């Protein structure tokens, strides 16, 4: 008698047609004579994975990480370094053979990203608030300068990945096929996040955001749960970085720069903190705006800045809040 009726919310009715549109995008781009759109959409999908990963810790867990570019970059460099050793025909550290197999490099990237997040998270999560922001930033900067100094892998200039990853049954040199792969991974990642945030683990994570003191009093020590979320988040960001290395055929320390961490954070805030689809919207909006504004003027950041301020001021809860209550300004929420 207490059971709530299982009625899908309106949002769920919108998703299937949106997904169909996303799948059809490469054909539409071909038909409209703008094949470059497929590449743009690929970048959007990749950043959507990274931003959703950040949102798991930032939005659901209340951990404001300003160093997520570190995991994005670690994922990218895993692909780049494995390719480099494959092309030199010389195993890494004498025993890890290089490879261009995409399933292998993606899994390796996620393992490296997860390990990095475990290490950085284990230390950073002993702090809170501004301290946590600064320490995650500091770790990301350390990794940034590490890769700048690694001359074997191109240092400042970065590393070209001249051979596309090989995925059984796919030809990833075809832009459309690479796009579909990124889109499927995005959908799978969102599905995972959707389950995780509603699970028992997700309830603890959300509790840690709202009151750690309350969690302690219930007999739950928040630290291991926050660390697990941080690791999962690092793995997602690394997956995105690995895909980006395949898309751009290039990795460089820019992937680990603090501005990249900032961009991911902007995507999350722009789209809607702590919502499943918010970071996806944020990624689409930011990558899209960058693309179109850059085509209009080279001072595109001059236009982007005020736009972001407007969203933060007038749409609390980001684009998701605007979509949920059309016509009602977000700040009415108070």
């Amino acid at each position: 008698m207490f059971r709530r009726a299982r009625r899908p919310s309106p949002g769920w009715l919108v998703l299937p047609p949106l997904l169909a549109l996303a799948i059809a995008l490469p054909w539409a781009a071909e038909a409209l004579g703008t094949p470059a759109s497929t590449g743009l959409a690929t970048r959007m999908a990749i950043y959507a994975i990274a931003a959703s990963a950040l949102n798991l810790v930032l939005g659901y867990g209340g951990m404001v990480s300003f160093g997520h570019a570190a995991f994005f970059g670690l994922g990218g460099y895993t692909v780049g370094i494995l390719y480099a050793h494959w092309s030199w025909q010389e195993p890494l550290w004498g025993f890890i053979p290089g490879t261009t197999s995409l399933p292998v490099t993606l899994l390796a990237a996620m393992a490296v990203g997860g390990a990095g997040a475990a290490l950085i998270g284990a230390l950073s999560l002993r702090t809170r608030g501004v301290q946590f922001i600064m320490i995650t930033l500091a770790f990301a900067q350390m990794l940034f300068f590490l890769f700048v100094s690694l001359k074997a892998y191109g240092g400042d200039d970065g590393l070209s990945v001249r051979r596309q990853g090989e995925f059984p049954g796919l030809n990833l040199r075809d832009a459309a096929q690479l796009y579909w792969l990124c889109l499927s991974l995005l959908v799978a990642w969102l599905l995972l996040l959707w389950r995780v945030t509603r699970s028992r683990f997700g309830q603890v994570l959300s509790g840690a955001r709202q009151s750690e003191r309350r969690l302690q009093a219930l007999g739950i020590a928040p630290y291991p749960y926050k660390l697990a979320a941080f690791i999962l988040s690092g793995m997602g960001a690394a997956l995105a970085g690995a895909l980006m290395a395949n898309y751009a055929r290039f990795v460089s320390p820019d992937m680990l720069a603090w501005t990249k961490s900032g961009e991911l954070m902007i995507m999350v805030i722009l789209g809607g903190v702590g919502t499943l689809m918010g970071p996806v919207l944020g990624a689409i909006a930011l990558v899209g705006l960058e693309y179109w504004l850059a085509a209009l003027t080279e001072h595109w950041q001059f236009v982007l800045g005020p736009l972001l301020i407007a969203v933060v001021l007038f749409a609390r809860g980001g684009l998701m809040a605007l979509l949920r209550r059309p016509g009602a300004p977000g700040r009415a929420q108070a």
Partner: protein
Amino acid sequence: MTAPLLLVEGLHKRFGGLRATDDLSLAVRMGELHALIGPNGAGKSTAIGQITGEIRPDAGRILFAGRDITRLPPARRVRRGLSRTFQIVQLLDEATTLENVALAVQAQQGHSFRFWRDARRDERLRQPARLLLLQAGVEPALWERPAGDLSAGARKQLELALALAAAPRLLLLDEPMAGLGPSESRAMTETLRGLKGRMAILLVEHDMEAVFALADRVSVLVDGRCLASGPPEEIRADPAVRAAYLTEDEEG
């Protein structure tokens, strides 16, 4: 005589020059309702902080059910059966009333490294949560409302439900009447009377009416130490207690 459930021995805590806890000793027996009273600044909050594990004492020890818990982290103490409520309620304000208690139930069912099943539809969590809400006197109409929207009285009741979810052997109540109106206060007194005997309760409270109506024994804390400990009538008659506390309270 059986060993006390909670035994505090020679506890000391200094903050700079202030002796917040000064050689405090205290014993709570199995099943009794033990009230801890004292004027403002007597060190009640610091004493609670040390018993629950949020504050580490400089010296002394705390035994719970015969085992030393002096250095045990707060969450582990709760799992041993020592749960508490807060003077200033600590709730998950964005979650509904029922979700708050469901998480408390979840905490009792082992670790929460479960990533797939929807916890918000899990009847193994929601069913026990509803029983606890009834037990603590929270009206069913409030169960699906965010905890942040509840009245002060309902929030105190929800706090109690959360503490009861841990199936405590000792329930530490930090001023459960603070901020309540007269009728809410009476309702809380009745709820506590119903709990009495089913577990030991350490009640920290300013409301003297409630304390003397409920307590089996009363300890008086003054200047960080236990001035007197005994049945309510004895405490009321104790000249030292009257001098240090009760008269001052009547005048003020």
